[in-house]
């Protein structure tokens, strides 16, 4: 179980956030969009949007990567921060942006059928 309050932000510090309440185990996404955006797996936990307090959001850029889905990153340093299904009321947050320790372990791997060919994806 994660801490009751989680903090995090981008590499340059222009965007910072706090999240109230516990966070579920993250999912590691192997899809081509996540791998292309992150240059890594997309490893995200999530919380209701109203539990976030975001500072420096003028530096937060959004890219609509497919209809109804957008990805948030820092326009100054390029750090990947958020993934959102627009209108869902939920906001996914990239685990790498969380100030360690997160207290979380990966719960599942998803979109393994779209995994990269440069590694052996886990079998689960």
């Amino acid at each position: 179980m994660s801490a009751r309050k989680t903090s995090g932000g981008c590499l340059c510090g222009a965007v910072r956030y706090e999240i109230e309440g516990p966070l579920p185990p993250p999912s590691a996404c192997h899809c081509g969009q996540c791998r292309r955006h992150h240059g890594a797996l997309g490893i995200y936990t999530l919380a209701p949007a109203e539990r976030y307090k975001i500072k420096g959001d003028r530096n937060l850029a959004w890219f609509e990567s497919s209809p109804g889905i957008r990805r948030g990153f820092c326009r100054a340093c390029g750090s990947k921060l958020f993934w959102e299904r627009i209108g869902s009321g939920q906001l996914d947050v990239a685990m790498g942006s969380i100030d360690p320790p997160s207290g979380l372990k990966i719960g599942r791997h998803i979109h393994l059928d779209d995994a990269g060919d440069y590694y052996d994806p886990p079998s689960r």
Partner: protein
Amino acid sequence: MAQDDKDSVRARGHCLCGAIEIEIRGPLRDVVVCHCGQCRRQHGAPPSYTAALWSNVTIHGEKNLKWYQSSPEARRGFCRLCGSSLFWEPIGQGRVSIAAGCLVKPTGLRTVRHIFVAEKADFDEITDGLEQLPHSMSVAAASPPPTTTVDA
């Protein structure tokens, strides 16, 4: 440009929105996963990087490539429109690391090791049995082979 350049392209890649396209001629280094704190923050997860000589890399749409200098020695290149991570460059060494996720399949690449495992985050799991180094690779190992084909 020589007529047969098209045939000598080793790999192609692009960012998520397609504003930046890259072509790499010549050899690519095996893929290395970096678990350092800076990479984790910038990518949102531990990134997988191959590497090449800059002289073998062609970039289309370079006006959309933004650089962020993350330390005195290195800078990180990403698409200013979609935020995709593309490059990590040790400045002035004539080589660049390229995010494997941006490359079009089949890449013909294999992951061979994990580095900066001493900085690994608590959520980060390594289950593939590959070599793990606590910190960086040696300079020699970090450089792509200058003339040979891809080799482990």
